[in-house]
């Protein structure tokens, strides 16, 4: 069984005010098929964890390790991490002018599989996945994320999740900016991906809303760059009622 393991991770970023410490010793272990929710107030380091795992060059790992089945992820380039089975659904996916969704998906699939997918079954699979996410067919002819609405961008991320079939996926605030219908469609897509591939999920969210549609096995509360509390799904319910106030009283954030 695959395991993604984060150990004592310390991460900083360069800001205009100098080096800023964001993650101050994070430990996490996600097994295949599990769903972990990471919750926490703004600025607690949730997204930093997501982008550090994916390998964004902006984040500097000071110490600690991230391993995927024992292999050190921090030694891998961004694309090697993806080929090892990691996927990040981004909160703000960028536009890639002049690159059509269809070409992009096929290029990504080819890169991950090491060979181009057979055309006919691939097109069928793409069309099927788009239909399930209620995406119009004309989507594949549009340039990646160009002129997409917020909801379309999120669907496009989940479309990739379903088609590229990673072993572990990090969803960075996929729920933000979605209305309830779009949230349901996107959540269904995530659940489908998990059922069909046994995906391990790391769900990063500020709100408990998405947890009504994607049930977490574990909930971790992030405060000031550390996991402040861990528990089962009942912890999310408690946060829904109480908010993050009780974590903030004894930190500088408040």
């Amino acid at each position, binding site marked *: 069984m695959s395991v993604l393991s984060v150990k004592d991770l310390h991460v900083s970023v360069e800001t205009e005010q100098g080096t800023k410490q964001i993650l101050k010793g994070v430990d996490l272990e996600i097994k295949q098929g599990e769903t972990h929710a990471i919750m926490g107030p703004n600025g607690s380091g949730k997204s930093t964890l997501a982008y550090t795992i994916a390998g964004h*060059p902006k984040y500097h790992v000071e110490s600690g390790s991230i391993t995927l089945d024992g292999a050190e992820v921090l030694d891998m380039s961004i*694309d090697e991490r*993806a080929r090892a089975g990691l996927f990040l659904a981004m909160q703000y996916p*960028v536009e890639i002018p002049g690159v059509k969704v269809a070409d992009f998906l096929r290029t990504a699939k080819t*890169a991950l599989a090491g060979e181009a997918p057979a055309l006919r079954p691939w097109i069928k699979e793409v069309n099927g996945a788009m239909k399930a996410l209620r995406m119009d067919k004309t989507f594949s002819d549009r340039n990646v994320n160009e002129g997409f609405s917020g909801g379309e961008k999120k669907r496009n991320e989940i479309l990739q999740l379903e088609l*590229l079939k990673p072993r572990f996926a990090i969803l960075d605030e996929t729920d933000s900016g979605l209305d309830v219908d779009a949230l349901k469609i996107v959540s269904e897509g995530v659940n489908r991906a998990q059922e069909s591939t046994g995906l391990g999920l790391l769900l990063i969210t500020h709100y408990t809303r998405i947890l009504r549609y994607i049930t977490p096995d574990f909930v971790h509360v992030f405060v000031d760059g550390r996991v402040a509390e861990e528990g089962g799904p009942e912890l999310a319910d408690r946060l829904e009622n109480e908010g993050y106030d009780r974590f903030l009283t004894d930190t500088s954030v408040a």
Partner: protein
Amino acid sequence: MTVVTPEQHGLKAHSDGGWDASEKGFVPVQTRSARPRSFEHTDFAPVNGLEAEWKLTPVKLIKPLLDDALDGAPYAIDTDAPEGISVEWVARDDARIASAGAPEERASANAWTNFEQALAITITGEEHSTVRISRSELGNTARAGHIVITARAHSNGTVLVESSGSALLSENVEVVVEEGATLNFVSVQDWADDAIHLASHFVQVGRSATLKHTIVSLGGKVVRVNPSVHLSGEGADGELYGLYFADAGQHLEQRVYLHHEAAQTRGRVNYKGALQGAGARTVWVGDVLIGPHAAGTDSYEQNRNLVLTEGTRADSIPNLEIETGDIQGAGHASATGRFDDEQLFYLQARGISEAEARRLVVIGFLSEIVQKVGDEQLEARLHTAIEAELEGTIS
């Protein structure tokens, strides 16, 4: 009236003149349409390379075209004129010649003085048809060329001129789009590495006529193409596109002038370029002039450059002059930059290698213009040509 004296530290006379105009008793050219014009080579002073018009151009390399007598005889072309379009060599006194404009600089005037016959392309058919003209055997003789394209009233056609091989050529291209006509003109400069090509395009777009004008410059040592487009008839529509890819040691220049003369005209200018390798050099100057009679004008121009390696230089100079307040809109934009790291991150995060991600981003960047060409065969060839250009950097 007192003369302005440059007292401020470092302040000196601008090379374009003007600050000391009252002292010297001259008025510099104030507006783009006021530049002097002549068909005679000798009416333009020898070029020293400091003139506003020439200061970004490697004038040493183009000297024969500026100063020497040029061979103005017809050259070999390959074409397949369909019904509705004629292609012929015509004499200097043909009525179509000198109907679109006159030279504004010395190399252009030199070509005009020296050309013997003009290549005349005339579109009469109302059903859309396409003519392809290719030329590849110009050789290293210093030549003068002249092309005159006439889209007769209500005609509809595409003219593709593709240049390859060696060349040392100064030429003028006249384009007249008559009332209600639709013309798609694409000029592709994919010359050999030693080629030197200077071109001035003079374009008149008539009443309710539509022009799409695309300049693609990929190959050649020095390629300088300056389109001057006049939206002279009411309701004229001009879309001016450009695509260029400069490698090490290449100089690719384009000075675009779009003049909204008549009312209710619409203009779009969009040039995109990529630069790679030591000494790769591009120049884009975009002058848009909205004249006093051009009420209801809708105009936008932009230039984007993508810098792929160290050691390149891209000049991008947009200018917008508006002489009437009654317009729909006018804007300009220019940006020159490296790869967007976030785009590369996004693609790499999907398993795509860095090299492949860069290739995708560049091709995507340029394909916005390729998609405007409006001819599938040529679009496919341009995609292949851009891929070949990229082989150089990304491997």
